[in-house]
């Protein structure tokens, strides 16, 4: 799977409504993840915007409501939903996970992510013949 995760400088045209797709209350459960995520957010000086394989823009950052942690939200024009089929969101989420795990590195590999996805038939995981 080609990861088309492009970091965006600004969310122009991405839409003003946010719909949460991932919420992580314990980014430091494995400290290497927390360190990486903080470094990425520090690098851009705030929230990280990225364009996923669907072409839609997502925001990674601190949640605006609820418990502390980090969230990934999809930006859109529709106040009622992301305006994207669930399968497409799953593929975008998967691309984000591959991006994240590829950067964390060490014992965390995209190959193991993919195998885990296959074992548990996780939506969004690439299906190999």
């Amino acid at each position, binding site marked *: 799977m080609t990861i088309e995760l492009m970091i965006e400088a600004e969310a122009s045209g991405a839409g003003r409504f946010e719909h949460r*797709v*991932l*919420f*992580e*209350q*314990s*980014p*430091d*459960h*494995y400290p290497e*993840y*927390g360190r990486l*995520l903080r470094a990425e957010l520090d690098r851009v000086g705030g929230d990280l915007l990225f364009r996923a394989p669907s072409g839609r823009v997502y925001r990674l950052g601190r949640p605006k409501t*609820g*418990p502390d942690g*980090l969230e*990934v939200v999809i930006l859109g024009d529709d106040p009622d939903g992301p305006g994207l089929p669930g399968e497409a969101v*799953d593929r975008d*989420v*998967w691309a*984000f*996970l591959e991006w*994240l*795990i590829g950067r964390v590195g060490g*014992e*965390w590999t995209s190959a*193991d*992510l993919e*195998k*885990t996805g296959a*074992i*548990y*038939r*996780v*939506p*969004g995981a690439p299906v190999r013949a």
Partner: protein
Amino acid sequence: MNPQRIPPEIQAIYPFESRWVRIDGLGMHYVEQGLDQGRPTVLLLHGNPTWSFLYREIIPRISPVCRAVAPDYIGMGLSDKPAHEAFYTLENHTRILGDFVDQLGLKRIVLVVQDWGGPIGFGLALARPGLVAGMLIMNTWAWPDPSHFHASVLPWRMMHAPFAGAHFFLRRNILVERGLYLSTSRAREKLKHGPVLDGYRLPFPTLESRIALLAFPRNIPLKPGDLNWERMKRMEEALPGLSCPCRLLWGEKDNVFPPENAGRFQKLLPACAPPRWIPDGSHFVQEDAPGEIAEEVLKLLDQV
């Protein structure tokens, strides 16, 4: 409280009246059946990602001779579900179970434990000397060093890694959708689709309802210094002090808690009978062998 309506097809296989107690301002759901008849109450403790539904085929088999009580931990089953992951610690689950026992006025119990029911139930037993009259121990653990499965990145640690867990557990509920199927043997087909799988899905319809499911794996210690390492170490050290009769029943096909765990319990517990092996049973042995479990509970009740 969460007076969730149980659909008729699930009620048909879980035909119990829902009851609640209030602990820390939260509604804790449980079911019970039978009268004590002078015997200890049988307290049936589930693990992750299950709830009292797990014991639906065991309760009717034992309740003619005893009072059987099956709670849902806070965050699980039909109990209330706080939004903060940090709430769901082994310490909190154990303390709340103690409050639950007090509210029901239980003075003497037989513990039936599997998966997280083990550490939670053992914590209760060790904190309340004299409360536990006997234990049936199934496919669980009580020590800090992790099983091979729990220590491995593929698939366990990957599943609940930061953000991966948010997708796997919270968005896609894979422990219910696929984990139950993968960790049963005899009963596997029932966990593919139909009312049994729907029964396990029932309490966890949304991302927000699944936070406890993700918190459980993050409570498993892997190395000294981790959350619960010291607690589990003290638990292992203290278990030999429990002199009540114990029985072991073990699904042999469990790759999470392999049969060696049963041997370790036998060495730790002075009054432990040899394990009853379920060769075609797996991790969720209550699904694979409810009849055998009921037989062991009844034998234990005759011992205590």
